[in-house]
């Protein structure tokens, strides 16, 4: 589904990604773990074409997309749930969701968009109840649901999620990750960036660990859960436990 080779990208003179190579197969849930500032968000933004790479290759569904426009990615089935949700706060929940299907409406696929809309309402019933409310007035968890719903409205095959658990109560995180599993069961491929390593490794198939713009560890989710470096750095175990 997605194959990245030697990707380098950054902002002006600051190089954030220093040669990233990874792949995501169809139907997988893949996670990228890493601390703040490791470049995880930049990586997702580069895949979504918000940031243009300076070097390397991004292949999506077999096509080179490193020079594509963001709307090309959306139209062709790659949608990003951005960090911090990035809703349209003064627009209603329904308007937010409808705009997610902007590219579908552009192709006159109104019927499909309406189907997606009712699917999202049934996945997150609270959004149906609040569809006329301004998105900015919702709670953090509900806003995250709108953000996910908006990305789903374009009917993506690959869903990129940037820290969906950020700032949410554990019970909401559970709901969100349960939704991720449901989406996979419906045939979506998911690449998810997280700091909450334990929660995400429970649902992921594979994972990468990112440090200062490079992927340093790669493996199955189970392997990563038991990897001492990962445990020490991201699962919050006491360092002493391993050194003794």
């Amino acid at each position, binding site marked *: 589904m997605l194959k990245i080779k030697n990707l380098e990208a950054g902002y002006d003179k600051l190089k954030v990604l220093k040669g990233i190579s990874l792949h995501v197969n169809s139907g997988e849930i893949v996670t990228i773990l890493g601390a703040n500032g490791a470049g995880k968000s930049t990586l997702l933004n580069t895949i979504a074409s918000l940031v243009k790479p300076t070097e390397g290759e991004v292949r999506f569904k077999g096509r080179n997309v490193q020079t594509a426009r963001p709307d090309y990615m959306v139209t062709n089935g790659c949608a990003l749930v951005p960090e911090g949700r990035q809703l349209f706060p003064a627009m209603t929940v329904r308007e937010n969701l409808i705009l997610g299907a*902007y590219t579908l409406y552009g192709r006159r696929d109104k019927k499909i968009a309406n189907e997606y809309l009712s699917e999202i309402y049934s996945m997150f019933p609270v959004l149906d109840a609040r569809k006329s409310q301004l998105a900015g007035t919702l709670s953090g968890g509900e806003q995250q649901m709108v953000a996910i719903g908006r990305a789903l409205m374009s009917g993506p095959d690959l869903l990129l999620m940037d820290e969906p658990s950020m700032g949410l109560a554990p019970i909401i995180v559970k709901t969100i990750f349960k939704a991720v599993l449901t989406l996979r069961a419906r045939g979506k491929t998911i690449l998810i960036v997280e700091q909450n390593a334990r929660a995400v490794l429970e649902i992921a198939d594979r994972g990468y660990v990112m440090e200062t713009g490079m992927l340093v560890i790669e493996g199955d989710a189970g392997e990563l859960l038991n990897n001492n470096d990962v445990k020490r750095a991201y699962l919050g175990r006491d360092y002493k436990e391993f050194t003794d």
Partner: protein
Amino acid sequence: MALNQILQYIFSGITVGSIYAFVAIGYNIIYNSTGIINFAQGEFVMLGGMIAYTFSNFMPLLPAIIAAILITAAIGGLIENVFIRRMRKTSVLGMIVITIGLSILIREFALSIWDEQIRALRFFTGNEISSVNILGARISPQVLWVLGVTLVLTAGLYFFLKFTLTGQAMRACSENPTAAKLCGIRTDRMVSLSFMVSAGIGALGGCVVSPLTQTHYAMGSDLAIKGFTVAILGGLGNPMSAVAAGILLGLIEAFSISILPMAYKDVISIIILLIVLVARPSGLFGSRSASALKDY
């Protein structure tokens, strides 16, 4: 003051206010999509009137006005393409200065194309001496045209922004351009579109008031300041409230003439601008809860 006199003031206030509203709507649309105050907005009004006048010499009024709107909209799109898009790297303040430069440029072009004479479009119905009697006040039929067009434009704009996908996409771009891109919206096209719509609305305004207030190559800068006052008064970024604010300012100006010397008319709008900026920067109708959700 007798009733018919009051009505006379009210109608003239609403007429003048409508043209301010046309300018302020344009400001708001461009501000929403770019964060820029486009001080060349008054020039679009002038261009609309001038182009329609020129075309009306050899074609009926309606096609002349439509042509003027389309041509002015195209000029708006051209300005966005040539000047605004290529200078995105500049600060917002820099861009605003560019629009001031553009307004001077357009004015000078207009001067060399049309000379400095005052022109007026034909009255849409009747002529300069025909009038309609409303409760004793004698109103030019053109005033009714101005009111009608303002009303239709306001309703149309509301419908466009609220219920059409393109309108929603325009609002999305103003609220969060990054998120709009993630929805697959071509934000660059939306900016172009907002310049074209603003220019077209300005031109329409220029056409409907031309028979009453005449069109002159240098009328734009005056309107730019009045329109700016109205945009601030209504709450920057809200095209709908600009209409109410425009009519309010028009009425205040009209009634001020009855108590103060004519020369103070323009002073009043500046005073209002200052008061609003100090006391209520979100504008009279800017809902605080909604504006708190937006980041300015």
